[in-house]
């Protein structure tokens, strides 16, 4: 039996749905979707998504594991909460989208150079260093995320804004050198590490 055929037969089985229910934040809500499509119609960015939320839910139920987890759709969510407000079944759609994104990231299935995913990573690493976000470094990291050349270009483009922010004391150049952090950075890092361990232990394996 070919791999493709195997996959076909596995379609419409509950396995991927169970995986989502177990491992994705608010994943237990997915089965309650009644396919009305109000979320897809309400999403301001819906037309830019490869698969709007309604379709994502159907794909989960149809067992399309790879297609869902490697999709960049859930990364497109801007957390406007329109879908949550309108869902007649009151599904926490926004949270499910972020849950799916997190899970995909964890499994290493995030599409390459997905900007939202990249930003999230930069944000996390930046925050973990000192226990708080260093805005100057966060901005700079974003400018240089595609390499040195484009970084310089982007920095120059925004230089006026930067000067104004410095003048208004919204940004300090001194932050570039170390910057300030929380009192007990290593304590925080330990806490996060422990949380990560607990979550990894809870995560069920579906291979």
């Amino acid at each position, binding site marked *: 039996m070919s791999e493709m055929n195997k996959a076909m037969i596995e379609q419409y089985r509950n396995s991927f*749905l169970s995986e989502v229910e177990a491992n994705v934040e608010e994943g237990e809500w997915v089965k309650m979707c*009644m396919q009305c499509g109000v979320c897809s119609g309400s999403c301001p960015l819906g037309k830019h998504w490869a698969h709007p939320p309604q379709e994502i839910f159907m794909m989960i139920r149809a067992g399309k594991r790879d297609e869902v987890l490697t999709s960049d759709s859930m990364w497109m969510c801007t957390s406007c909460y329109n879908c949550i407000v309108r869902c007649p079944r009151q599904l926490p759609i926004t949270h499910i989208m972020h849950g799916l994104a997190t899970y995909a990231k964890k499994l290493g299935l995030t599409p390459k150079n997905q900007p939202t995913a990249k930003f999230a990573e930069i944000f996390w690493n930046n925050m973990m260093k000192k226990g708080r976000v260093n805005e100057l470094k966060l901005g700079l990291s974003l400018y240089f995320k595609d390499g040195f050349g484009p970084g310089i270009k982007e920095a120059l483009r925004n230089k006026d804004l930067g000067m104004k922010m410095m003048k208004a004391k919204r940004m300090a150049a001194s932050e570039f050198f170390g910057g300030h952090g929380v009192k007990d950075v290593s304590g925080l890092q330990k806490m996060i590490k422990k949380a990560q361990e607990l979550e990894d232990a809870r995560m069920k394996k579906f291979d």
Partner: protein
Amino acid sequence: MSEVAEKKFAAYICTGCGIGDRLDTGELEQTASRDGRMNVVKMHEMLCNKEGVQMIRDDIANDGVTHAVIVGCSRRAKVEAFDITDIAMTRCNIREAVIWARPDTDENKKTTQEMANDYIRMSCGEIKQMNKPSPSGQQGRNPNVLVVGGGVTGMTAALEAAEAGYTVHLVEKTGALGGHVAQLHKRVPFKAAPVGTPNSPDANLPMPEDTGIADMISAVEGNDNIKVYLNSTITKTSGAPGRFSVDISTESGDTTTENIGSIVQATGFKLYDPENLPEFNYAGSPDIITNLEMEALANAAGDGPIKRPSDGKEVTSVLFVQDAGQNSSDEDRLPYDSGIGDLVSIKQALYFKHHNGDGCDTTICYNNLRTPGAPGEDFYRSGQKNGVIFTKSDVKEVTPGDSLTVKMHDKILDEDAEVKVDLVVLDLGMVPNSGPDPYAANEALEGMSDEERAEELEAQEAHAADENSIKVESILNLDYRQGTDLPHLKHGFTDSHFICFPYETRRTGIYAAGPVRRPMDIRQAMDDATGAAMKAIQEIENAAQGRAAHPRVGDLSYPSFRKEGCTQCKRCTVECPFGAIDEDEERYPQYNESRCRRCGTCMGACPVRVISFENYSVNTVGAQIKECDIPEEWDEKPRILVLACENDAYPALDQAAISGVEISPWARVVPVRCLGSTSLSWVTDALNNGYDGIIMMGCKRGDDYQCHFVRGSAMANERMAKVGDTLESLNLEPERVVVEEVAITDIDRAPQLIQDMADTIEKIGLSPFKF
């Protein structure tokens, strides 16, 4: 003393509600006594109050008044106050039809007064042709209800009637009570989740519950007022409500004859035949089953897992094909949807979750998921919560094999897919268990050419003669002239207005309940049965007093005919929408009072005008037409006769006046019981008398009819198609006579139709027949 001399006519004119302010009451009084030739004319400033009504009652008691015209408000107002049944009585409407329909200005004063005078003349003419109606005494009180069908509908109807103190004869074709419900494993829950149940994936939602049929069967069997006949059918039903004679026969041929007051037909449904759906391969594998077979499979499982029929393997995946053979435009498939199939499949999918564990894949392939009823949405969520997968898809094909292969098109993902499952359940539709439609043969002929007609008739005869052809068995075996069973509306379901008068059928005293009337679930069928039982009880009491059933409830008048004038043409027996008229040995029509709804369709059908009611006849309406003053041609005041159905058109005109919509001063409105009672002679007479236009206002006809007598309005329309010949022979324009469908809500349109006729007359000129 001759009978005429005993009659004393009186008119009572109310001057309240502004009548006295708007009209010259002296002139009204004079019109009633001089033109109307009333023996007594009295005025009262508020006739409907105690004092006014007492005045009329005193005159009846002390002065021997036998006929009264009550001049004032519409016949639809103050009905209780003027509930006078011991004499002949009519109402003359000069409030809604005159003062409220016309503006209160000086230039309109004269035409408004003319209207009121005319209506008084008309009513005085009418009352002279009327007599006090009295019941025929054809039947007495018979407290026996016959219930045909021992399923959940029939048993509920039986219990309800029995609890109300009536005796019930419950006839069941098979050897056991319970019908389809007795075959079910569980039923769809009756109640929604309690108020306040959270909307979450772990909420406590309703689950399949016990059918409760065992309790119901023992309640029926233990009820002294219910006599159950198993393995029995109805071999003959004759008579009428209050005096039905019913032969109940067992398979072995033993027959009991019972006297019955009224009948509830609860013959239920059968499943659509899956053999007609080749794509689902029902015959190809024992693992492709119907929704009813699924119930048996669940019953067989006991406490263990559900196993598939072919090899007894525990089912690990099941797929439900929703709406199989339903909602289809293909011939031989059901054009409708049983509506409850989705609830049933959710219930059955939950059987698997319960018996075979959460790991059993249950997929419901639907197109439009519908879960009607109070618990519907909660039950849908209950299915989802428990892991039933719902896939909006078209199932294209089911192929047998070691496991079944289902090909489908997913309509959300817009792609073809293929699944392998252990079991496929087909959601088949409900086909009503009706007897043969008495009018099917006629309807097949509608709109055919003479040649096609001959061919069709030949085919019908051949079918009837062929011993091997499949014939629908009669259920009631009525020995009515118009067929053995209840007429159908569509797709074999019995004909009754599904909103306005749901349990009524076109055979008075026989009420349909449950899925023979329309597809429905247990809960709805039980409500339906209760409603039908109440109607059956009501009919027993009405028939006992000679009173009409819906819609002229309580009417004591009934049709009779002048034998010497009858030509035995049979038009009345054919056109009666309720099959109320049989044929006697001499081939004259034979009326069955309690089958009659008093619409007068027979009266309108009679070409020799020999059929009449005591208080409604060709002459009562004819007199109203004749007594209206027709102004001379040079007055330039046209007269428009409006024959308005009392059920919808007349109330619409009343309501128009109440709402301040003007009605043309040229209109003279005559209420009729049903447009079906309209005699062609009224039209001819009116035209000969010099009316300039005639509007006939009846209810909507056709499949989605609103006619309270089902076919009356359609009959009238057919007959009036011939009015063109009359107009031609009189050399009159065809626009002068129109037939319109008017609904009770047409309060702007109905007056506008009259105005349109007034405009037409202005264009084509007044009638040349003014004398």
